């Protein structure tokens, strides 16, 4: 197995996690036109939820995905109904929503400090350090599992958005909420469901990330930044665009090790972000309606 193929596999596996991290952010922005700065907070919360269920009750992190996603979904709806819903729509509410959700993130982080201290935690399972041979390369079982879950999540999301009434309603609201009210779509309900969905996706990403990396209450900040890069690269509101953008970001980060010192590789994605914003402000794949 040559080095190139190994790097390709590493890029693809990493891309799955990046795509899951980003889609919740893109979905909420695409429909509600709100940048959910609490995305990082929910990533952190998902990580702690998975860790807590595993360390206290011995529940495998992959089995806890469903309950964590369900609770996060409800939490997202509650957050929308209790907080976001009260903000004015459009440009007037833009800055207010940023500040509000940033505040929620800070509160969540400090609650995590209070409950779990600032110590780094690791979600260690019996297969945490197990490896398997994939196309001739030795890869972490955990990374393959994370990729599989990420892929399944994106496929389900794609089907939801393109093949179901709810998905069509979400896309319609993203296009023109005023017209939606005329045809009987309950826009506020769609907003709440979308916010819940985006929040659940963030928690899933956090839980998946926790199986790979150590985390503490500040977990989520770096992940939020990467989500921004993916969302901007992929163009807002496109599932395929998000997946491809995640792959590009992962590949750039992984392959950069061949050309630049390792400590600079984390910055490569942000250089890419600046280049895309300057050269193709609409993202690599332009603006598309969700799905």
């Amino acid at each position: 197995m040559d080095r190139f193929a190994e790097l390709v596999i590493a890029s693809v596996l990493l891309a799955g996690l990046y795509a899951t991290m980003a889609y919740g952010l893109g979905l909420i922005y695409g429909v509600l036109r709100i940048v959910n700065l609490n995305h990082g907070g929910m990533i952190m919360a998902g990580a702690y939820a998975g860790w807590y269920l595993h360390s206290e009750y011995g529940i495998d992190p992959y089995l806890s995905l469903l309950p964590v996603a369900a609770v996060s979904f409800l939490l997202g709806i509650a957050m929308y109904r209790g907080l976001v819903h009260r903000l004015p729509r459009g440009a007037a509410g833009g800055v207010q929503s940023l500040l509000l959700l940033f505040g929620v993130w800070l509160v969540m982080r400090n609650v995590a400090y209070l409950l779990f201290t600032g110590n780094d935690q690791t979600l260690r399972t019996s297969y945490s350090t197990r490896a398997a041979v994939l196309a001739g390369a030795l890869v972490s079982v955990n990374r393959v599992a994370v990729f599989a879950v990420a892929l399944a999540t994106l496929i389900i999301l794609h089907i939801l958005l393109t093949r179901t009434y709810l998905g069509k309603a979400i896309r319609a609201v993203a296009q023109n909420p005023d017209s939606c009210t005329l045809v009987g779509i309950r826009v506020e309900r769609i907003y709440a469901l979308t916010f819940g969905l985006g929040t659940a996706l963030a928690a899933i990403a956090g839980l998946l990330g926790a199986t790979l990396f150590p985390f503490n209450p500040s977990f989520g900040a770096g992940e939020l930044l990467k989500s921004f890069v993916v969302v901007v690269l992929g163009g807002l509101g496109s599932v395929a665009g998000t997946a491809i953008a995640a792959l590009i970001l992962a590949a750039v980060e992984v392959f950069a090790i061949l050309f630049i010192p390792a400590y600079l590789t984390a910055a490569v994605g942000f250089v890419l972000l600046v280049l895309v914003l300057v050269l193709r402000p609409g993202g690599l794949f332009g603006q598309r309606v969700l799905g």
Partner: protein
Amino acid sequence: MRNSRTALFLCVVLAAACKKQTASQEQPSGGTAPAGQTVAAPGADTIRVGATLPLTGAEARTGGFYKEGYELAFEEATKNGGVDVGGKKMAVQLTLLDDTSTQATAASLADRLINSDKVNFLLGTYATNLVEAQSVVAEQNQIPYVNGGGAATAIYKRGYKWVFGLLAPVELLAESIMKWIDTQQKAGKLPKPATIALLWENTSHGKDFRKGVTEFADKSKNYKVAVDESFELNGKDFSALLGKVKAANTDLFLADAHLPDYITMQRQYVTAGMCHKIQSYGARGSEKQAAESLTPKNVQYILSAVWWSNQLSSKSPEAKRFVDLFKAKYGGRAPEWYQALGYETVRALFAAITQAGSLDRDAVRQKLAALKIPSLLPGGELTFPAEFGQQSHAPFVVQQNLPDGTSPIVAPPDAATGMGIAPNPGCAK
């Protein structure tokens, strides 16, 4: 749409700022950890000592260890009726703050301790990068600053008069590891020449480690550094870097990492199916937390060089006294080098105060500069040699994790408590 793009870009900047700020968040309590020991209300008869430690953030775990060492030393002083100052026992009070593992907070809290809390002396924080920033404040304010957490020579090469360090340089650490490897090579257990994958955190600490290894390799001619890469401190994903190391197929894997990075990197190392004849993470390797996070099997045969080991208690009365005190206070738990260095840092300061016979900062500084006391550190004596910028040059002990869960000292020979194994039998096939 242009507006929303701008807003999104602003968000990126905001989130970046938040990421930077994250670690500087104070604890919910307001960032001030309870004072380690308060003997009496501060007054004229109280020696006020200020300190910060990383009690939250990336270095929280290690910061907690240092805190245990500080607390033990203050408790011991209290039990003895205080610190002898010119024939009179004075109570001691420690004001310990959480610097959240960030440089800016460490520096600003030091300033607060000196100028608002009016402490008499400062104890240092942990980790080279924080000590580097904080020591500047101590020097500017001309207050004795004794630290057991900063090892990089860069801290002590600035000609500072008020800064004293108990950690011997990381260059010496690297040299100690290389010397042991060299004896194994001379015994025919390792290939000649041996290739090295050298990974170092991009800090003064890491640069010193790199210097120690490369200088030894250059002098010896029996080693070739095939991979020489630095990495970001507190990184999360080292898989690409490890992929590069794997492709180079070297004999030795020598990395310099702090505890969180060691645990993260070793986890990814094991998962990638990597194995080297010799593997080391510099000062890290024998920590219980690592074995718990990674399982003992995955930390076998890792070589580490540390500033102190509790195994020294079998040969040093000072070390034995400390180990007994520590076990008595902490329910029989054995101390690691972090607690020992924390304890010894406080002891060095108290010894200098006693020798000075006053709380005069300059008098205490002069006594610290000339200090020569029996110590629990390897070598049995603590000094702050002026030729090394007042940085201790106590020798290191080299340890190796064995399959039975122990980490005997394998070098130097006079302190050795066991035999080392090379090459790693786990990757013989």
